């Protein structure tokens, strides 16, 4: 099979040139949807009969948790592509994705803990969902640490990619933890195969926030990748021209 197309897409210069216009479009769309979803969820959605107004944390907690898990797959798949086809860009994407995922995982854990206080009466319990999310944060931090631990860029990329691959096993555990074990954490609110347990008046802003968080993630990932390309290719003529300009 001819893999030349992959190597062309994997060229940092090609990526940098082609993504220039995407930056603005994604940014405006993501920030606009974040604003719309947050205002709708905070001020216009009705109060939950059981949890009161504390349920409004769902509009930031669930999207950040979901995107942090999906982001882990983005990072690990980039690592796999880098290991197999040795494309420069995939390791650059992997490196850029790790801090974004770590920040979102931390935000999901923090908002979950704060939401836990009025709902469960405690900020923290060592149940399966919360503990596996904490492991996800440690995996992200471990990958960031590995990337910084080597002088040799190639060795750093390869080690981090292997850790990312091994850590992939944690994501389905997080997802299924509420079904496999008895936990305080409530089961999934939105179901693809069954009727969702959330009223449409509360669901619409949540759907907007899902789109907003995904778009925001890809917006930051795109810009972080472009910055990392400049850093790694700093000795090339084309990057030198960009920096001079």
């Amino acid at each position, binding site marked *: 099979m001819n893999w030349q197309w992959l190597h062309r897409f994997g060229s940092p210069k090609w990526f940098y040139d082609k993504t220039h216009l995407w930056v603005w479009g994604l*940014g405006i769309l993501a*920030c606009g949807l*974040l604003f719309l979803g*947050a205002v709708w969820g*905070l*001020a*216009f*959605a*009705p*109060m939950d009969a059981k949890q*009161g*107004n*504390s349920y*409004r*944390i769902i509009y*930031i*907690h669930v999207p*950040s948790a979901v995107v942090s898990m999906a982001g882990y797959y983005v990072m690990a798949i980039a690592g796999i592509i880098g290991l197999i086809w040795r494309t420069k860009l995939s390791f650059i994407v992997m490196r850029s994705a790790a*801090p*974004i995922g770590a*920040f*979102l995982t*931390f*935000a999901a854990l*923090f*908002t979950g803990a*704060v*939401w836990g*206080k*009025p709902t469960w009466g405690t900020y923290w319990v060592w149940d399966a969902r919360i503990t596996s999310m904490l492991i996800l944060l440690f995996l992200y931090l471990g990958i960031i640490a590995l990337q910084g631990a080597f002088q040799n860029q190639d060795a750093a990329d390869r080690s981090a990619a292997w850790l990312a691959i091994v850590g992939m096993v944690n994501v389905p555990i997080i997802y299924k933890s509420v079904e496999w074990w008895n936990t305080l954490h409530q089961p999934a609110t939105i179901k693809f195969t069954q009727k969702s347990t959330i009223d449409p008046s509360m669901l619409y802003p949540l759907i907007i926030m899902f789109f907003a968080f995904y778009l*925001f993630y890809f*917006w*930051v990932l795109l*810009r*972080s990748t*472009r*910055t990392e390309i*400049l*850093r790694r290719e*700093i000795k090339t003529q084309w990057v030198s021209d960009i*920096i001079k300009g």
Partner: protein
Amino acid sequence: MNFYFATFSEFVQMGTHGPYVWACYFLMLAVLFVLGISPNLRTRQLKKSSRSRKPTAKSTPTESGSDHASAA
């Protein structure tokens, strides 16, 4: 679609859950702000350090050349 709360004060208080809700939203705002601005800061820092390194890079061959010559 109407504003759910009767007054702005009720909106801020959110029953008794205002501190929990607002703490989460402010933290998330801070996280998204840091994530959103960090690529710009790193690019600016990279460009600055690259420009400031350039005169040194030009002078390096001369310096190393003179060192090499004196050593010879």
